[in-house]
């Protein structure tokens, strides 16, 4: 049995404490270790993605206990893609954090960063519902630590809301797991799938309640209406690299819905009819609207970006909620895109805001490198709004095309296209004020009054961003371009991942096949 599957969890779990207690007085040492670890993780995740390409679902029984009695890790195409995406994003974010010096603005950045990765990887790999809860906790507490990295009143306030909302979600998660265990007697996902499918119809109430609770729990993570409230303040006030890394955190929730609500509570399970499918779609549609309206109405840059993340989560979940292999494949493509484009925008926003007085959308004297930032913002906005030539457009086409075969086609078309329009207009307004209008101000004119209540203080003459500071943003945008150019092979992989997902018998036999006699 190959132990590589668990490497994405064990490697950061070992590295992080070493960084925390051996290297905590030397930032260079910590950076080196963090880089080495993240690069190794990216290589491992790439290897796993290649390994999963064959289509075999691999299960790894921790402690050598047979499923469902011990905990299993499961690697299939879907988890592999999530791992790869996370590790690539992590590398991009790490370069930015180091190049801009964010990591040195508080304690334990790199340790928390590695722990964060560990939590995310663990959540993507696990084949056990309770273990998913554990890793939700790991990534929640690590993300809270990272979110408040560097401190500051507003950030701490937002951080509190973030952690409170998510702890409420964790509580509900426990209720859900308790109910599920009481209804089925197991928490192994494959075993759950078997038992739920075999459940008599007259005994469905408990499982239905559990499925709904789990959906709400995951919806909190995925920032879907009506539990999206934590996101704008969190993303707006988190340190930029952290906000960029958080682009994957919403996807953890989406992933959990995709995984649990197809394998366990699949659309074809009779006892669950009308539980999730009926509700997830309207929820996703409203989320698209909230995101788009938020982008258009934003008066600050960071909330604008945050709402665009909500909108893209909504778009993605519209496709997920249709629960067909084609829509899921489209959703996965869009998810990869949405993660990278959100990251690009948050990293760029950091570069810009470090040279501006506050993130309020109004004209100020142009910053250094105004042209460069404007070009990058244009590209990032194109990505987020889903315009060509970047991958968002293809993602949106994939989703819309796949939605044509579903009964919710009209609603999906209207929501996604109108949402795109509002997003485009919102981004155009913001970009034009930030980067164009500023050029109309005469340099002699005294700078506008400093923003009220803005935590940031502007240095006398902000230095131009160096190559290494800009590189991560450019890299993220280039990845979007690459994703568009290589849409064919990427989409083929994701399509295969979706097919694998909907053929849950492969998953079940991979996990349960070896140990049922034990």
């Amino acid at each position, binding site marked *: 049995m190959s*132990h590589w599957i*668990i490497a994405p969890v064990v490697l950061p779990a*070992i590295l*992080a*404490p070493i960084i*925390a*207690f051996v290297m*905590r007085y030397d930032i260079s040492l910590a950076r080196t270790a963090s880089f080495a670890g993240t690069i190794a993780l990216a290589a491992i995740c790439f290897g796993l993605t290649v390994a999963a390409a064959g289509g075999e679902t691999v299960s790894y*029984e*921790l*402690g*050598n206990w047979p499923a469902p009695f*011990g905990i299993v890790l499961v690697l299939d195409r879907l988890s592999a893609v999530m791992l790869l995406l996370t590790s690539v994003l992590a590398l991009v974010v790490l370069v930015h954090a180091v190049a801009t010096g964010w990591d040195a603005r508080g*304690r334990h950045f790199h340790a*928390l960063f590695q*722990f964060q990765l*560990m939590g995310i990887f663990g959540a993507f790999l696990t084949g056990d519902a*309770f273990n998913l809860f*554990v890793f939700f*906790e*790991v990534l929640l507490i*690590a993300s809270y*630590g990272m979110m408040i*990295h560097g*401190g500051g*009143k507003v950030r701490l306030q937002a951080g509190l*809301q973030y952690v409170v909302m998510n702890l409420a979600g964790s509580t509900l998660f426990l*209720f859900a797991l308790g109910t599920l265990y*009481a209804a*089925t*007697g197991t928490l192994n996902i494959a075993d759950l799938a078997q038992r739920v499918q075999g459940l*008599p*119809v007259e*005994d469905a109430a*408990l499982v239905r*309640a559990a499925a*709904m609770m789990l959906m*709400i729990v995951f919806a909190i993570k995925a920032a879907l209406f009506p539990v999206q*409230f*934590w996101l704008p303040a969190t993303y707006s006030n988190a340190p930029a690299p952290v906000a960029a890394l958080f682009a994957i955190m919403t996807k953890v929730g989406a992933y959990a819905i995709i995984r649990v609500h197809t394998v366990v509570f699949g659309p074809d399970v009779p006892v669950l009819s009308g*539980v999730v499918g009926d509700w997830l779609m309207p929820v996703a549609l409203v989320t698209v609207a909230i995101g788009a*309206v938020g982008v*258009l*109405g934003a008066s600050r840059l960071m909330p604008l970006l945050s709402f665009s993340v909500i909108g893209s989560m909504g778009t993605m979940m519209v496709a997920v909620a249709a629960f067909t292999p084609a829509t899921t494949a489209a959703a996965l493509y869009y998810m990869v895109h949405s993660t990278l484009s959100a990251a690009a925008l948050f990293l760029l926003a950091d570069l810009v805001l470090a040279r501006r007085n506050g993130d309020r959308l109004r004209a100020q004297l142009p910053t250094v490198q105004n042209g460069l930032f404007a070009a990058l913002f244009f590209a990032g906005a194109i990505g987020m709004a889903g*315009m*060509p030539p970047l991958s968002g457009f*293809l993602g*949106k*086409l*994939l989703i*819309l095309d796949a939605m*044509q075969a579903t009964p919710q086609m009209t609603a999906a078309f209207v929501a996604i296209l109108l949402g795109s*329009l509002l997003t*485009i*207009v919102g981004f*155009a307004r913001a970009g034009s004020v930030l980067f164009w*209008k500023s050029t*109309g101000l005469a340099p002699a004119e005294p700078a506008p009054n400093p923003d009220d209540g803005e935590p940031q203080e502007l240095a006398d003459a902000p230095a131009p961003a160096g190559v290494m500071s800009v590189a991560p943003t450019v890299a993220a945008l280039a990845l979007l371009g690459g994703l568009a150019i290589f849409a*064919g092979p990427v*989409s083929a992989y994701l399509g295969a991942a979706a097919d694998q997902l909907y053929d849950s018998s492969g998953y079940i036999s991979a996990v349960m096949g070896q140990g049922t006699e034990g």
Partner: protein
Amino acid sequence: MTNGGSLLPIIALLPFLGALVPGLMIRAGRNACATFTAVPTIAALAMLGVLTPDVMAGEVLKAEIEWLPQLGLSASFFLDGLGLLFAFMILGVGLLITLYARFYLSGDDPMGQFYTYLLLFQGAMLGIVISDNILLLLIFWELTSLSSFLLIGYWKHLPEGRQGARMALAVTGSGGLAMIAGMLILGNIVGSYNLTDILAAGDVIRASDWYLPALILILLGAFTKSAQFPFHFWLPHAMAAPTPVSAYLHSATMVKAGVFLMARMWPALAGTDAWFYIVSITGLITMVLGALIALFKDDLKALLAFSTVSHLGLLTMLLGFGTEKAAIAAVFHIINHLTFKAALFMTAGIVDHETHTRDIKRLGGLAKFMPITALIGTVAALSMAGIPLFNGFLSKELMLEEAAHTAWYQNDWIVPALATLGALLSVAYSLRFIFHVFAGPARDDYPAHPHDPPFGMYAAPALLCVLVVAIGVLPGLAYPMVKVAAQAVTGQELNFYLKIWHGVTPALIMSIIAVVGGALLLGLHRPLARAWNAAPRPEAKAIFDALISALVRLSRGVTDGLHNGAISRYLAIFVVSTVGLVYVAFSGGTLSPPTREMLPVPPVVAVGYVLLIASALLVVLNHHNRFRALVLIGVIGLMISAGFVYLSAPDLALTQISVETVTIMLLLLALHFLPKTTPRESSVGLRLRDGVIAVAAGAGVAALAMVFLLRDFDPISDYHLANSYEGGGGTNVVNVILVDFRGYDTFGEIIVLGIAGLTIFALMEALLSGPAARRLRNTDYSRDRSRDRHPLMMVVATRAMLPIAVMVGVYIFLRGHNQPGGGFVAGLVISIALLMQYMASGFGWTQTRQRLEYHTMIGWGVLIAALTGVGAWLGGAPFLTSIYGYIKLPLIEKFGLGSAFAFDLGVFLTVLGAVMLMLYSLSRIARYAGETVNVEPMDYDPSGKRELKKPEGE
């Protein structure tokens, strides 16, 4: 060439690759920059030239590169007559504009950027006309919106430029989005996104139920792009762009994209009543309205802009007629409009450039100062007016001819009448362009002294004028091109002639009426303009701006209203929706009857319940007094522990008690720095609401628990009971589950604890380096402090207890695998002992006596646990596989030892380290708050032998 199609992707790609160059070449100077911009265009033109003979011979060249087969998107291109015509127009005019812009742009304008945008736009346009896949076409379509946004907003320091760019993007962008929907539906009807397939499937499309939605959505795209009424208003505002941009976008390219699309989709979509009425009515209204507004515009470019709107309406109307002759007229007029309109825009640019004004009221008599420009302008404007011997006349005749026998709803005079009116107005504004700008007496109050520009600047429009006259005199020149393009539009073999004299036809009469009427109208222009300006008119920009800002205000209101920052509200929404949704889900299924009996409630248990419920209620009532609330929470925790004992879960009870103790102690320490009471912040109504929500949620959870506690189920835990000793080496199943069966969960949980410790530490460091530290220092906590900080009794008692507590901890740790206990509880027990020590004797004193560093403890804890897991790899077993055996040491009994023991040690260390790090962080805050550090354990030396050192501040 047999394989000519392979050139097509290269042609499509060239402008995009070329776009990278000007931005760099500007460093070599403006001429180099312009030259290098022309290179890709010329190269593409040359390749197109190579392909022309094949296309003219009726061949359709194709090339296909697979891109995203799952979607049906491929990078496939094809070139037929229509594509060829447009490609020539786009590239040819692009080249002329490159030349013209070199002289037009001033030294202050970033020319490299300009040419980059221009090439991007050119590439996008070119892509539209040679795409053989409608999804690919959509990509290029949206790219034109984006690149035109950059071009229109090129003068980014001018508000008009920015607003015009945004308006164009919003209008054409929304049309583009509608078109996406339409194209997807169209593809779904046909079963292919391949344009060739779609064009061949016209009958299937028109018979489909989805035909009308697809048609309307696609037409929305075309109408917005081609500025058809009521979406025409963006075009004049796009005139804020530099004139070369206007000349390019509004003569040959951007606005023609919509017309192109209608022509392209003609075989698939035309031929129905819906198409006929929607398209021709829209076109005719646009034509008349555009011409009418154009007549009263004083800004030269605005006049041309509205005349463009009008001519686009003409083209749309012709395509809407849906007859072959109309298609021929449309194709021919596309060519003619391009030649005279580009020339006119450039002329307007020259006038603006030389006189520094575009206001017709301030111009006139320019013919004397700039004769060449006047000649060019006059020729082009006469063509626009449709005067014989200029090419505009020919296509206008064809148009009027078609209009003359077109009936709307059996009414056969309205179309000819309105078409004549449009032509009449067109004559009027064209003549106005000539007479009010160039003719008339010379003035001496021009803002700048006018003269003809350098050759480079008028070369391009002059060349176009040559074409205007050449085609006007010898229409046969354009015949092959028109024929092949019109055949491509209609998809049929066409036989026709282009000639000047058709005899006295209705069209000629209408034309004469138009010319005479137009001239008369111009004569009456002054009073008419006065009336026009006095009449109230809807101002499109004001409406659009109001609409957008209303939308923004609404959005802002909705967003701010929803996200008001109150966590209580967010939680309320979360709880209400959860209760509601779970109830709906639950009640959608049925439930089998309970299988268990309710148990009797013994008096002791009843007391426990009462205590539990009462303290919970008291917490709610007393939460404003934080200390009291904390005490009550302690009671709740203890009652829960007692519950665990009663329900035979000693491990849980032990853990609960120790967790409870540690938390309460840490909270007590933290309370010191917090206000003693919680202010009342919410109204009675709000509290009532929250109360109802809380009770509903609590009742829901209780009901759910009740439901599943009353029913038997078949859990997997039998396996754990059976295998605990055999496979896990321990008789305490709970512990074996924790460190072995589900050791991975525990591994995760200790990491959570470790991260919490690190986070609290980091948070404290951040706090103490921020403004909070100042507030801490300035707050006077002295009144809250006990005068006897380290009471003798407590110091002595804790010190006596320490070894005992440690002993208990070790005992609990060691017995854990077989009896209730384990690393987690042990860690907590020892941390309680140490906590007590710190609280009793003070941080400073205790700290000097404790050598282990907390970070290290957490680190080692996690590492030991992880390495224990990794160790299993050496044996070829999965992570965290345990091994155990029995060891016999002298003096003591044989005992079992397993790798789980090491894992548990990791758990123990992490727990201890995390708790102590939290304590350390609290004590750091205390010292910032002015707490003194004691060196001695007590303020009072019980031995009385020496004077105590004065406590000193940090």
